[in-house]
């Protein structure tokens, strides 16, 4: 059974326009919620983590970008 079948294509295409590897971002947010639920019993702080991740990916000046490993 595929874990998250949809995650493979659509979100990745959508966020590529912003220079962010969407698939990684979506997966990151789900993983962060899961981690917080497990460790802290709630998703408090996750929105800030997602925002930070987006800030890192979309910067004012062109800076080093996380490698988009989904391209292959």
């Amino acid at each position, binding site marked *: 059974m595929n874990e998250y079948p949809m*995650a493979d294509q659509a979100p990745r295409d*959508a966020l590529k326009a912003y220079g962010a590897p969407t698939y990684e971002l979506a997966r990151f*947010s789900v993983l962060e919620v899961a981690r917080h639920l497990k460790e802290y019993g709630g998703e408090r702080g996750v929105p*800030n983590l*997602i925002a930070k991740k*987006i800030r890192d990916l979309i910067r004012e000046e062109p800076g080093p970008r996380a490698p988009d490993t989904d391209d292959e």
Partner: protein
Amino acid sequence: MTLHDLTIHNFRQYYGSQRLVFSKSASRNVTIILGENGEGKTALLNAIKWCFYGVNDLPFPERSLNERAEAELVDGGQAKISVAITFEDRQCVYTAIREELFRKSGKALIRVEHKFYLRYLDEAGAENEPFNAEYAIRSILPENMHAYFFFDGERIDALSKKEGTEGIKSAIKIILGLEVIERAIGCAGDACELFRKEFSDRNRNADTARLFQFLEQDRKLLANALERKETLDGAHLALTAQKEAVYQELKINEGAKELQAHRETLEAHIAALTKSIGDANADLRELISKSAYTAFCGRLAERFLSLTEKYEADGAGARAGDIPPHFYTAVRECLIERGQCICGAALHEGSPAYEAVKGFDAHALGRDAEERRGGRAGAGAGIGTGAEASWRAHVFSAMDGAARRKSAFLARAEALSLRKRQLIETRGEAIEELDAVAGKLDAQASKNIRELEARRKKIEEELNDTLKKQTYVELDIRQARETFEKHEKEFDRAQANNAKAELAKKRLEAAQTLQKALEGYLADSTRVVHQTLNESITAVYGNFSKKGYFAFIDENFRLTVVKTSDEAGRDVPMSQGERQIASLCFIGALVKIAREIVSKDQLFFHGGVFPIVMDSPFGALDHDHKERVGQGMPQLAEQVVLLISRTQWAGEVARTLATRVGKRYKLVNHNAKNDPEAKYEYTEIVEYPMPEGGPHIPASEGGA
């Protein structure tokens, strides 16, 4: 999770320690626990839930301590209830222990301690405990999932009713991690809010186009003013040159040269006077800024000195220079009100400095005055810490000096003013004399001289006019420059804000896209999960079903059974027994999915092999349904534990399950009716092996 054994101690009906071992055999995976109503079947099911999660659904959960154990307690004595379960999960053997300690106090029973342990053997074979046992057990089997693995068989039929859809939806979401995606969508939405706020904050007052327009206007105004200044400066130079030429001509003209020489001397004199007037003005300004205060504090100083003199004259041993007590009081109150001592210490209520100032009273003054008279001025307690003597000296000197300085200030100011007036007067006289020179030149017989003088006057007028214009244009330039700089700063700020707003907008769009992506992700995952679940239900239902029936979860998450032959796909009206079977199939499907996802990289629920522990599974079933459930039950999970009454067990159930039962226990209840010596009712767990010889069932259990 495979259950190994359970030890129950003083929990509800169970007195002392009772232990049962679950069957782990693959071919005989069913453990039967036989007991009649009230003998402790439901208590046993609850003991498992209580041990793992601390929940107890039994009535009066606060009365969990066994009745006999409680009765045996003396006042102040303590008794413990505990449930320990040993189980295996992912090749690791754990022991979960939950216990509560009670103390008898008079007639009351007080819970004094509640503990939960989860122990396991690590790779080296040493006993270990996870950092947080409560979280660890929930990561093995989430608490909100336990209802699908440990449950009351008579109640599960609700899952196939309309009101069961929420339960089904929630179970699917939890077991397949969809719940986490839902929560991630919420978190992405919150991240959107953060960027939306950032964008709105940055976007405010960022009208760069309008500011740029202002800036352009300012630039033109400034350029224009600078251009005018340049023209005027040029005109001024030209006029000065023309004037110089006229002067030269007058100087070489016999009839005018003396007057012209005198004029130039006067002009130099007037220029020197103007400079002196400027210097006098500057001196006066400096004097006022440095010493004008003395004019105002002179009266205060006079009043202060007269007060101390009056104090001396009033007697009471006071001498000139002693400070009157009411003056101290006023100073003390003033210092406390402003919150700072004259030595700079902050006066917070309760602080040592505050207490010192507050305690500074007439008594201290009296002592101090005495000491001062004895030549030890300033040795006593005073304002602040020891600063009082120097302060007093400073005050007297300042008050004395203030009066002197006022006189000096007034004298100096008067002298400077006088000098300025004299200079102005002298300059006036020089100007008059200068006018007289001009008049004399005007009255000369020589036409040439008169014309030269007329030209000079005209040039002079034009020079004055140019000078005025130059002054105005300089003012314009200053104003234009200030406005330009102000607008330039606003423009830079707006541009920076615009860039940040643009960035926040991009990030907001990214967060919105992420949220949408996650929503799509959820929708598609739900579809796939739905499909997977239905495949499992179909497979499990095959073990129970009447021929030609088909069970599935519809698009509204309703558990439905239809006849395969019914092309319209209409629901089969389900009896309670049929509902129970359909619900069991759903649970069986969950167990199957949990088993299948065990090796996958799941985000939240790791999946795994789970047992089914079911109380009264055959309660409402007729013979036909009992037989079908009996046949299908061992295949629902790797391990099945059934808590069942003897009457439910007898007959077709015993026959269909005989070859699958690995362990069998009976609950033996002791009460006054069956045991005259039993003062308190309690239950024992007694192993009751299946008859040897395979599937042979005694007649008492429905066998032939």
